[in-house]
């Protein structure tokens, strides 16, 4: 057991705002974190890094008063405290933006903000709606967010919901702001603005705990870095003492040749072509081709319409006009079933909602898209079924106790591998990947792209959508940008220049 933790000294001048010492938590049989230590100082950005399932969110939940630790001490401003509930956390000046949005879709923006700011008192008291609205507007102004306070949250886009989350979290007396993967649903541009906000807060003396998987963001922001693995803090120190490579090594526990491996592939014929593809209000006149063995990257901001285009190709939404050609022939795709007949596979952007059935086992999920081929006379051949699961668990290196384990018990990266496996099992010729590494840790990301690379080698035509520009540019053979539903420029020459691509993504060229 590694007990010695390398902690290099912070300036002795500052006193810690929050320190966590020897905290452990287990859920039933699962140890989420054990003997974790972390110290947060006012006016600094502290990045907490770790693989999926390393226990980062658990630590966040402990600080937020949602989860009670089994052991260890929490100290805030020098006093040992017990954070019984979220209200207690807020009273201590701890604000949290959770990994998964915690909004009330049936309530308005103003009400959502109201609940976040609620004092611990629970007496029945009448609401002053004008004050509620005014408070909401004031809270939004703090971040220069402009949402209609009377709008129902279910009508907001994912990005707006994420912004609302941050608005809700911040209040005038926030001393510690915890951001648990706040950028997973945001694209580059929004991330930049978020960073601006973070820097401003930092300059006001707020401590920030930043949990994330994107190393570029971490190095841009963080003053200090803590890496945890398997529920335990591995190393903690000033950001300047780390390099991306050393962080990855700590994270993964070994050196990684490359985070985004790129295989050399001989490109084949054009296999998929999209012609004059239009869905009013989402995208218009989209034209592109993908060759066998090629990875086509689609770049754009959130809301650029890339997801909608892939949904259109896969038959999930009706298309107003345009054609999809496969192998040169125009095909009609009225639903996912049709798309699958043409050997298209689609890994959707929202893994937990659209990709995997969380409360079913791995084997169930892996066979979901191939049930008919797995069965004869309507009965699933259990031998083929078992072989399929075993095969894909092995090929994709899914870390699990067995095929009967529930997906919900897997880490994000491993969940993503199962979703990928589900689609690879259909033997696709066209693979559409919509943000396949959203919320996935570095090690798993690298494994996912190794698999994608192998698929390209095997001659699949691949469309890749990602909000992480570095990743997109590293693994794509060709990149097309989109802006507000319109097709932008096409970049064909590797290596791509991220500045020009970004400019095109934001509609500047």
């Amino acid at each position, binding site marked *: *057991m*590694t007990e010695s933790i390398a902690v290099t000294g912070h300036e002795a001048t500052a006193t810690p705002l929050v320190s966590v010492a020897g905290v452990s938590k287990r859920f*039933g*049989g699962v140890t989420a974190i054990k003997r974790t230590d972390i110290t947060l100082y006012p006016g600094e950005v502290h990045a907490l890094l770790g693989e999926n399932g390393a226990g980062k969110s658990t630590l966040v939940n402990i600080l937020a008063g949602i989860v009670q630790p089994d052991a260890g001490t929490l100290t805030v401003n020098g006093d040992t405290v017990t954070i019984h509930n979220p209200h207690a956390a807020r009273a201590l000046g701890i604000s949290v933006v959770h990994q998964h949005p915690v909004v009330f879709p049936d309530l308005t923006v103003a009400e959502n903000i109201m609940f976040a700011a609620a004092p611990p008192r629970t007496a029945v008291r009448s609401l002053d709606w004008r004050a509620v609205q005014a408070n909401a507007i004031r809270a939004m102004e703090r971040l220069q967010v402009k949402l209609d306070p009377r709008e129902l949250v279910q009508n907001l886009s994912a990005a707006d919901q994420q912004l609302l989350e941050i608005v809700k979290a911040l209040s005038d007396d926030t001393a510690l702001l915890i951001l648990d993967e706040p950028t997973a649903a945001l694209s580059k541009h929004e991330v930049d603005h978020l960073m601006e906000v973070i820097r401003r807060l930092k300059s006001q003396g707020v401590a920030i705990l930043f949990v994330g998987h994107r190393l570029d963001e971490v190095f841009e922001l963080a003053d200090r870095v803590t890496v945890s*693995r*398997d529920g335990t803090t591995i190393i903690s120190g000033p950001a300047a003492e780390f390099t991306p490579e050393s962080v990855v090594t700590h994270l*993964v*526990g*070994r050196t990684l040749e490359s985070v985004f491996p790129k295989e050399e592939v001989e490109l084949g014929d054009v296999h998929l072509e999209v012609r004059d593809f239009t869905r009013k209000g989402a995208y218009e006149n989209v034209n592109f081709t993908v060759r066998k063995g090629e990875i086509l990257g689609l770049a754009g901001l959130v809301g650029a319409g890339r997801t909608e285009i892939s949904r259109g190709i896969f038959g*999930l939404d009706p298309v107003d006009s345009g054609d999809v050609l496969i192998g040169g022939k125009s095909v009609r795709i009225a*639903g*996912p*079933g049709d*798309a*699958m007949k043409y050997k298209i596979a*689609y890994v*959707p952007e929202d893994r937990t*909602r*659209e*990709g*995997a*059935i*969380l*409360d*079913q*086992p791995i084997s*169930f999920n892996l*066979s*979901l*898209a191939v*049930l*008919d081929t*797995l*069965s004869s006379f*309507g*009965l*699933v051949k*259990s031998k083929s079924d*078992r*072989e399929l*699961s*075993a*095969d894909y*668990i*092995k090929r994709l*290196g*899914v*870390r699990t106790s*067995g*095929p*009967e384990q529930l997906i919900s018990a897997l880490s994000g990266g491993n969940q993503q591998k199962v979703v990928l496996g*589900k689609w690879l099992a259909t033997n696709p010729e066209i693979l559409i990947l919509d943000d396949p590494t959203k919320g996935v840790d570095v*090690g798993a990301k690298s494994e996912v792209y190794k698999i994608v690379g192998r698929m390209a080698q095997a001659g699949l035509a691949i469309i890749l959508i990602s909000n992480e520009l570095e990743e997109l540019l590293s693994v794509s053979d060709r990149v097309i940008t989109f802006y507000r539903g319109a097709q932008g420029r096409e970049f064909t020459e590797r290596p791509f220049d991220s500045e020009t691509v970004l400019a095109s993504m934001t509609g500047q060229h």
Partner: protein
Amino acid sequence: MSTQTITSPPTQGTKVRRRGLPAWFGAWEISLLVLVVVVTVMASISTPYFATGPNFAITAGGVIGLALMVIPMTLLMIAGEIDLSVASVFGLTGVVFGLCIEGGIPLPVSVVIGLALGAVAGFINGWLTVAYGLPSLVVTVGTLGLYRGIAYILLESRSISALPVEFTTFSQANIYGTYIPYTFVLFVLMAVFAAVVLHRGAFGRKTFAVGSSAVVSRFSGIPVRRIKITLFCLSGTVAALAGMLYAGYVSSARANNGTGLELSVIAIVLIGGVSMFGGKGSFAGVMLSLVLVTVLTSWMNLGFLPTNVQNTVIGVLMIAAVVVPVVAKKISDSRPLRT
């Protein structure tokens, strides 16, 4: 602790070992089985009339309508939907079947008309649910009234008792020389078929998938709407069959046949461990729950126990069905874990 063990995935053989119990026979099914055994033993000891062939025959024959409707309701609820109109379809088809017979339509044709009517009634439920994205609980509260109401419009206060002898015999009699009702054989065949389809069939897998997550299922190319409509049709058709057999069993088609039976059907499925929210449940559990409730009812009938006591016992059972597993889990979680 070594770093190597974490980074490299555990080597996984191609052969998969199945540990412990199959998914369709878990802790809840075992508890139900134990309860069935305990209640059966107690009933057999307390009254000499319980464990007899004739009692089996009348109990199995009497429960047939309920038992048949439980089968599709299990599938439907696993798919995350519910059909409160089954008892009304049950009554309505009995009436239409009776009118057909009365109108001189040959028996086989009348049966087919009845089944078709049930399928249509089910289709309407399914279509309203799927096409307008309405909760099936709400839709079938409406059709519950509508279908029963049509039965009243058609037959008013009359009853039709001149049903063909071969039909009433099939519904009432036992296989010659045994205490096994014909209808029981029909039920067993349908139950076995449904169990195999649900737990071994591709359709069953899809049913679970649809109930667990309709969105993921759609994204996986599973025809969610078609499956739901199929299950509603199945529910209607089986309710129709049950309604006609019941009319045969009591030699009487009336507009109020089976009123209120939907609650019993749903109670049995829920006691069987099927989740109200879909995606969870097993056929074995539901069958055990059916047996349990039937055995209890038969025992209490023989003991001339008042119905209010019977109802109270069934209510306690329902609550126990959800409370016991939760409490058991709490107790087992609080025990220190072995490592």
